[in-house]
Every structure is written in C-alpha cells, then in structure tokens.
C-alpha cells in the first residue's frame, strides 16, 4: 500500500516537472534558447494569486494565467534581438532577465514570503482503503496528464503543431516553406507560459508560501530533467522532467528519514551517472537525424 501511495505522489510531482520541462523544451526547440527565466513565470503567477486574495477563485485563476501569459510574451519580445545569437549570449541574457525579475520581486514583496492562501481545502486527503491521497495530487495528475495529452495531439495532429515541429527540426527549411518564424516563436512562448501558469496553480495549493525564488527552485530540477531526457527533442525533454520529479519523491520515500538531507546529492549523483553513460540524454536517439520535437 505504501508503494502505491509513493507511486501516486511521485507521479504527481513528475507530471508537474514534465509541464515545466515541456515549456522549456518548446522554447528551446524553436529558438535554441534555454530560458532560465522560465521559473519566474511561475513566481509571477504565484504573486498574482497572492495579490488577488480578496477575489473569488475563478478570478484569481484567470488573473494568474493572464499575467503569466503576458510576462511570457514580454520575454519573447525582450529576447527577439537574440534570434540567431550565440548560445552563450542567449544564456547570459536569460540569466539576466531571471535575476532582474527575482530582485524586482524582492524589492516589492521582501524576502520573508507571502501566504498565497489558494484553495487550501484541496490539501485535504481522500481515503481509499488505506490510501490517503490529497485532492490536489489527484487534480495534478489528472489535469497535468490531460494537458500533456492535449499537447501531444496539438503537436502531432494539427497544422500549427506541424509548423512548430518543423521549426524545431530545421528552422531555415521551415522558413523557406513559408512557416512564419515570428508566429511559431511567439506561440511557443505563449504555450510555455500557459503551461507555467497551470504549474503555478497546482504548486500554489501545495506550497502556499511564495518567495522571489519560488519558481526558480522548480526550474532548476525541471531543467536538470530536460538535460537528462535530452534537450534537443521535446518528448524526451518532457519525459526527463517527469523522471526527475518522480525520482525526487520516490527517493525521498526510499531513503531512511535520517538520510533525507542527502536526497538532492543522491539525485544529482544519479544525474551525473546518466549523463556520463548517455551524454545526449536518457531518451535521445542517435545524434544528427533526431527530430527535435
């Protein structure tokens, strides 16, 4: 029974990290840019929930998603001059945006943390036999799973998805076929933003205290997941995010309580082993011919 409990909790965090990883992977796919400021989308969303405390839940959800989407599109606008720049330039620029946002939030809200108070009732558990599952866990798995499925459909079956995949696989060739470069990049940021918005909503229930590094602390493991899965392609990157989230909870459950302080050390040691054995990523196919989305 403990095993099933652990599996469910692991899956819930895995799905959450998968959503973050997919956002990062989408933007990397079409722009070759690792957006270190992706975590700040989550932070901004969480502060929006904090700021709208006085309003009904639906208004707060709408406001958080709208603000995150807007900030994602603003980031796209900021990064526009970087198209075609070197990887190092892009990396430094996104770091800069991340730090500016973090410090701006620090100036406005201070370092202590603010209580989001968003649907706390969802933290109550529902008992199924001996299993105790929190409502938010069920919602995270269901909503996250549905969104991941919808994304697969969008990318695999629609013309818009085909354009995103083509741009990710070979940007120049996609352009000479008439794929609008600006459109697919904006779309990737918009979708990445919405995915971050959904992550914010789930996270806000589970972790109700928002600080300026709220999203950054989620971004780091998700980004590690992206690298472990394989940065160059969307599905492996998303799976990598899932694996890291899943492994974090599973390892935490396996380790004796006294050793849990070593959880991150153990996790990153495993990551290093994976990258030594499979430097292109756990789920990467042979290099060169791989489709990037």
């Amino acid at each position, binding site marked *: 029974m403990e095993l099933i409990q652990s599996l469910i909790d692991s899956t819930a965090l895995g799905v959450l990290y998968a959503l973050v990883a997919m956002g990062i992977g989408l933007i990397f796919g079409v722009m070759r840019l690792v957006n270190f400021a992706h975590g700040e989308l989550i932070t901004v969303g969480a502060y929006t929930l904090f700021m709208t405390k006085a309003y009904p839940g639906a208004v707060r959800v709408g406001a958080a998603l709208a603000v995150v989407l807007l900030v994602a599109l603003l980031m796209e606008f900021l990064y526009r001059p970087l198209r075609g720049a070197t990887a190092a330039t892009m990396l430094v620029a996104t770091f800069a945006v991340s730090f500016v946002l973090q410090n701006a939030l620090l100036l406005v809200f201070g370092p202590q943390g603010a209580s989001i108070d968003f649907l706390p009732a969802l933290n109550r558990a529902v008992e199924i036999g001996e299993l105790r599952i929190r409502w938010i866990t069920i919602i995270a798995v269901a909503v996250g799973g549905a969104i991941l499925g919808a994304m697969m459909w969008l990318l695999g079956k629609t013309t818009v998805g085909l*354009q995103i995949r083509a741009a990710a696989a070979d940007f120049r*060739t996609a*352009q*000479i*076929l008439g794929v609008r*470069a600006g459109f697919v990049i904006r779309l990737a940021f918009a979708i990445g933003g919405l995915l971050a918005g959904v992550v914010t909503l789930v996270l806000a229930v589970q972790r109700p205290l928002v600080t300026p590094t709220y999203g950054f602390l989620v971004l780091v493991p998700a980004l590690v997941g992206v690298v472990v899965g394989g940065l160059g392609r969307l599905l492996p990157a998303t799976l990598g995010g899932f694996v890291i989230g899943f492994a974090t909870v599973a390892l935490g459950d396996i380790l004796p309580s006294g050793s849990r302080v070593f959880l991150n050390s153990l996790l990153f040691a495993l990551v290093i082993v994976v990258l030594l054995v499979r430097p292109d990523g756990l789920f990467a196919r042979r290099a060169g*011919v791989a489709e990037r989305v």
Partner: protein
Amino acid sequence: MSEPILVLDDLSVDYGGVSAVRGLNLEVGAGEVVGLIGPNGAGKSTTLLSIMGLERSASGDIRFDGLSIVGESPDAIARRGIGMVPEGRRIFPDFSVAENMRLGMLRRPARKHRADLEWVEQLFPVVSRFWSRQAGALSGGQQQQLAIARALVGAPRVLLLDEPSLGLAPGVIDTLFETLAVVRDRGVAVLLVEQRAQLTVSFANRTHVMRNGELVATLGPEDAGDTGRMAHAYFG
C-alpha cells in the same frame, strides 16, 4: 514589355566578411530555365540564399514580379510564390511524406490543395506511393523527388534549385530533368544551380557561369557541345 518575373539587379552579397557575390545581373522569365554553374565557392548557392532572404544582400536589388523583395523574411518571400529546393534536400526525415507535403502546402489557400497535390502526384508518383512512410526511410533519389514535390506543391511561380542532381544515379538524373521540363512548360520560372555543367547548358534557355562571385560568361544550349568554350568559361 513587362519585366521578367525574377530580376537580380547589380546584386552583391557578403558572406562571413568576404564578398561572395559581386554585381550580379540576372533575369528569369516565366516558363524559362536559367542555369547557374561554376566552380565551388563561386557564389551560386549564396545567390539562391539571398533571393530567398536567407542571406542579406550588401547592395543591389532583387525584384519578384516587379517588386523589390530585399529585406523581406524568408517565409514572406516563400508566400509570395518563390519555392526552393535547398542543397542537401533538407526534407524532414523524422516526419512522414504526408507531413513534408503538408508543410509545402502551407503557403497556399486550403481550397487549392487538392488540385496542387494532384498535379504533383502525377509528376512524382513516389509521393502517393509512400504517403504514410517516414521520409527518412526513402532512398536518396526518392528523397530528392520529395524535396522537389514539396517545393512544387506550394505552386511557386519561381523555383530555385540548388544542385538537385547531387548524389543521384544517372538514370534518376535524366528523369529529374524531364520533370523539370514539365515544370518549365507549365510556366514556372526555374533558376537551376548545378555542378553538371554540360547537362545544364544543354537543358537551360541560357546558363550563366559564375567565378569568384562574378558572372563571367553566358552560354546557350548551342554551346553544350563546345567543350573548349565551356572549359574556358568555367576555368578562365
């Protein structure tokens, strides 16, 4: 008389700080094939890339249908009606043949898709035969056909081809040129960059020879048998 559909007017292109194309003047009319030959590094591919908006021109003008397209994005140029078969085919190997073709149809209104596709499938039966197959699983010749089919299904008024015969067996090359003749006869303006000089000179309405970024000679089909003149134009 109105201007030919594609006009390069005193075009110069810098490539990585080096002057790759200098003062190039060239015209392609509807239903014409114009060849562009010359040694490696002569500036042929750079010329095609700059027409497509993938390389910025340093000076001069590129006009399509009488309007300057300099500075436009490659996707905007594609939607105007210029199709390109890039060097190395650049099909999407992990996509199905159908998905590759759907990308080619992007720039056309949906109501035209069926007619466009029917015509291209007649020219390239390989497309319908392997419709659901992964494009990377096709042979080299079939992939080249797919690359041309993908460019043609967008019904371009100008077709730019960068070394389409590269890596193909002689029999397949003959078929390729027969197909290009059909495309030309349909009124498409074809600008053909090739290494196979003799074949190109005999096939094209006229063939320009480029060397060190400059146009140094223009040959007609009647020069195809004159190897001395061709060699002189090619190597100086």
